[in-house]
């Protein structure tokens, strides 16, 4: 048996304090304890990126972080992209340009794209490829994802 550990984490601006088992993965903490099921689990091997979130401002695969490691940290999940009932321009663009088919990889794609657009306002096709290098999509062939991210960056620059 292992000793539970008390952690305090800010998720999408809200502070949560919980006791967790040390082996609890951050993605499980987010999905099962906080009931924020937008973040998906796609693999067990740190490949697919479906579980991507921002932790202290950086993209991480939340299936490869222990909840205890996030103690004291700030987390942004896909649920945190929407503001005042209005979808983020990236979410709008994915919807408009059919940037998803089954949608399983989409939360991770959105979070990686969100980080990319924070770093690079007007990304090239190559920047986008590098920006989502850690996110696998097995149905769109990526083309519509590039289109969505490009269009979102344009709308964000125009202040839409």
């Amino acid at each position, binding site marked *: 048996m292992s000793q539970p550990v008390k952690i305090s984490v800010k998720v999408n601006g809200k502070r949560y304090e919980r006791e967790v088992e040390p*082996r609890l*993965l951050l993605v499980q903490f987010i999905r099962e304890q906080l009931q924020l099921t937008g973040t998906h689990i796609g693999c067990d*091997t740190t490949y*697919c990126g479906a579980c991507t979130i921002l932790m202290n401002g*950086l993209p991480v695969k939340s299936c490869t*972080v*222990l909840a205890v490691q996030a103690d004291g940290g700030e987390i942004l999940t896909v649920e945190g992209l929407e503001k005042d009932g209005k979808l983020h321009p990236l979410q709008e663009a994915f919807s408009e340009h059919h940037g998803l088919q089954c949608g399983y990889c989409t939360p991770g794609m959105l979070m990686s794209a969100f980080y990319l657009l924070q770093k690079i306002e007007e990304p090239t096709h190559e920047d986008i*490829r590098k920006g989502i290098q850690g996110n*696998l999509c097995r149905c769109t062939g990526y083309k519509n994802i590039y289109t969505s991210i490009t269009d979102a960056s344009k709308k964000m620059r125009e202040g839409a």
Partner: protein
Amino acid sequence: MYPSAFNYHRPGSVDSAIRLLSDIGEGARVLAGGQTLIVLLKLRFDEPTDLVDIARIPALDRIDDQSDTISIGALATHRRIAESALASAVPIVGDCANGIADNQVRSRGTIGGSLASGDPSCDWPSLLHTLDAEIDVQGPDGSRTLDINGFVEDLYQTVLKPGEIITGVRFPRPAAGSGGAYCAFKRCAPAYPTVSAGVQLTLAQDGRIGSARVALGSAGLTPIRALDAEQELTGKQPDAAALERAAAAAVAASDPVDDQRGSAAFKRRLVASLTKRAVQIALRRAGGETVKNSHEYY
């Protein structure tokens, strides 16, 4: 899968981490960024009783590139190194830091963890052979400095003793007129390399290669220093024939196995082509040319 249950400790200093590791004994593992360890725990390839999380020990999180000896703390993440001035000052370091896994893994994975894993597929251990690096470790019997050569002594096995922690890595700043490159073949960004080759060399005034270091990753049970390939380059004009001889010597030094990433025969051909590519880019960089992204995948 859930990892098996373990206790969690978060010491605030290297000394208390070492005390914990010694007190707990062989069931304890050091946790830094977790990008290798947590995957192993989830697959239950390892079932430790205790994790000692060193990630918040401030003394281990540093990059000092101001003097002739470059010093990187064990907790420096691949991302932090990639975004540091060091990445452009020593291009082979930039190659490695930018090309390891993907954006997300680079946010968390550390240079110390890459070394401690003893995995021949990890990029830092093979790359650091080309820079004559030394590894600083601290343990119950005090501090010592280890040579990168022989640090990984067998598959997933380093020469670290029980209770010892890697505190940092040091290597001499490459002299003016030197250049290096690290190249790998990867199936996709998150994958480990199928094979990788690192080359660091100096160019003499007459256009000959002054000195050369050649190291291979994922080409055997440990990172491999290809000494005969270095001999084929040292003092030679860097013409096509010299590159072919160096590539052949690198192949002879490699000892790849058949696995899901490819057959041994395929990997030997990769050793040859990646060695040549790394030498060519290293030569261009030594000549003052800026060559970006020799190790970047998407």
